[in-house]
């Protein structure tokens, strides 16, 4: 089962990764080979088998919904690439209004 370069770029976009042309070619070849290997799973009959998403299952643990202040807010914010007044700054996501 192959995965062509066009599809590699589609996946890269979904995963929010910029790819160079060379990377596109390499990943197409490598991923195709890996996907080929995965095809062995098709020989296993699983129509009656439930999936396992966690190796051990227990009831979802509940707790009281209490506020516990984190002591070191500054320590967390210190790791941010860009801050303004305690907020994370990102490139502008709204367009300027028409005619302005």
């Amino acid at each position, binding site marked *: 089962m192959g*995965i062509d370069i066009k599809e590699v770029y589609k*996946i890269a976009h979904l995963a*929010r*990764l910029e790819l160079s042309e060379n990377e596109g070619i390499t990943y197409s070849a490598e991923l195709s080979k890996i*996907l080929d290997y995965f095809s062995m*799973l098709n020989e296993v009959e699983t129509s009656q088998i439930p999936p396992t998403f*966690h190796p051990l299952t227990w009831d979802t643990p509940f707790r009281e919904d209490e506020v516990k202040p984190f002591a070191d807010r500054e320590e967390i914010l210190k790791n941010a*690439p860009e801050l303004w007044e305690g907020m994370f700054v990102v490139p502008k*996501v709204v367009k300027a209004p028409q005619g302005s």
Partner: protein
Amino acid sequence: MSTYSFDVNELTIAKAFNLLEEGKVTSYELAQALLERIKKLDPKIKAFLYVNEEWTLSQAKEADEKRKNGERGRLLGIPLSIKDNILIKGHPTTCASKILQNYLAPYDAYVITKLKKEGAIFLGKTNLDEFAMGSSTENSGFFPTKNPWDLERVPGGSSGGSAAATVCRMGLGSLGSDTGGSIRQPASFCGVVGMKPTYGLVSRFGLVAFASSLDQIGPFGLTVEDTALLLEVIAGHDTYDSTSAKVDMPSFTQRLKEGKKVKFKIGVPKEYLLDGLHPEVEQNFKEMLSLLIKLGHQVKEISLPHTKYAVAVYYIIAPAEAASNLARYDGVKYGLRVEGRNLLEMYKKSRAHGFGREVKRRIMLGTYALSAGYYEAFYLKASKVRTLIKQDFLEAFKEVDLLVTPVSPTPPFKLGEKTADPLQMYLSDIFTIPVNLAGLPGLSLPSGYTQTGLPLGLQIIGAHFKDDLVLTLAYQLEKALSLTNIPPLIKEV
């Protein structure tokens, strides 16, 4: 040669602890000796990403003060190393990734809180494959670690730094994480004990997530006793990890001593004796089976019929979970940011520059396996086969107490040997992966050496929450084998 009253190569946690308690050595001296060793040896081995002498010595001083004041702690004054995907407050956690190069941990991982409570001190953070994705430490975003038994070979991975540091006595033990063999395989390649506990036994709070249904934190030790002690300290229920189990665990160290003569029913999965098993691995494994019989255990062949699908299942599920977990690295809240013309471009450029090749490969693989049109064929299918793999083990444990297998199909391989072919690298985890898929406890015990002096390991697998039985058998075998694990390289230090 060192000028200390103790021989560093002879130290274990248990021995160092006795020396400290008897007042024959201080934690400060111990820390100094190990830091000196790191300075001399680590330029060759490259096990550490971060060492902070001042920090270590001040912790040691504090431990000595506490001891003088009559305070107790099961690891009081014992220097350890920690894999660099586990958070220690105020110090870097990089996951060996450029994307986290400047990240400072704002809080302690649960396991670190537990170690601190018992008085352990930290020498530094150890190297790994970026985000724990790899089997050789060659995927580190900074540099590969070398195998202390042969510098041309890999120490295994992903916790290669922790395993190499431990056998070099650059720290008397370590913590790593194991998603598909990342503790057991490097332990085997470096000749130390490494254990992946039952899923849920140790909280992952403060462990950087890779694949959440598979990740477990576990200890490396120079002996089974040290490993049991570290596990005993870090295990326990934590409300900050929703998968943390509420089970009463026995004292592992006590169980070892009580279980010296216990006889087990031990299963050998016939599917693990596959073609392509290295002859020296096979020979060593057969010797281990003879030894088990000699010790009075019952050994019988069992079958785990879905074994051959484990690698395929794992390399669908783990990348799928990783693709989701690693979505958080977007250049906004922490980590590397590369500017772009808009938000989307900033995301894409930050991630493209911050992540290394293997991490990107797995994110792509996982995104593909979860994407519309492929979810059922890949992710859901793999999750169903996972059920069958788990059932195989549950069936086997109706007949036997424990299973034994080799840890890796080959002895430590050469640097660069498998980097060109990702699939070959993936297949080197074939014996350790099924254990994570099923959530079982597994331990790697040093079991001998190849003719050229490379370490080999035996994997002991137990049923869920039978971590104590795994350790008990390991302890019996360790006593019977009485191997020394001092790489020639460190004898001259």
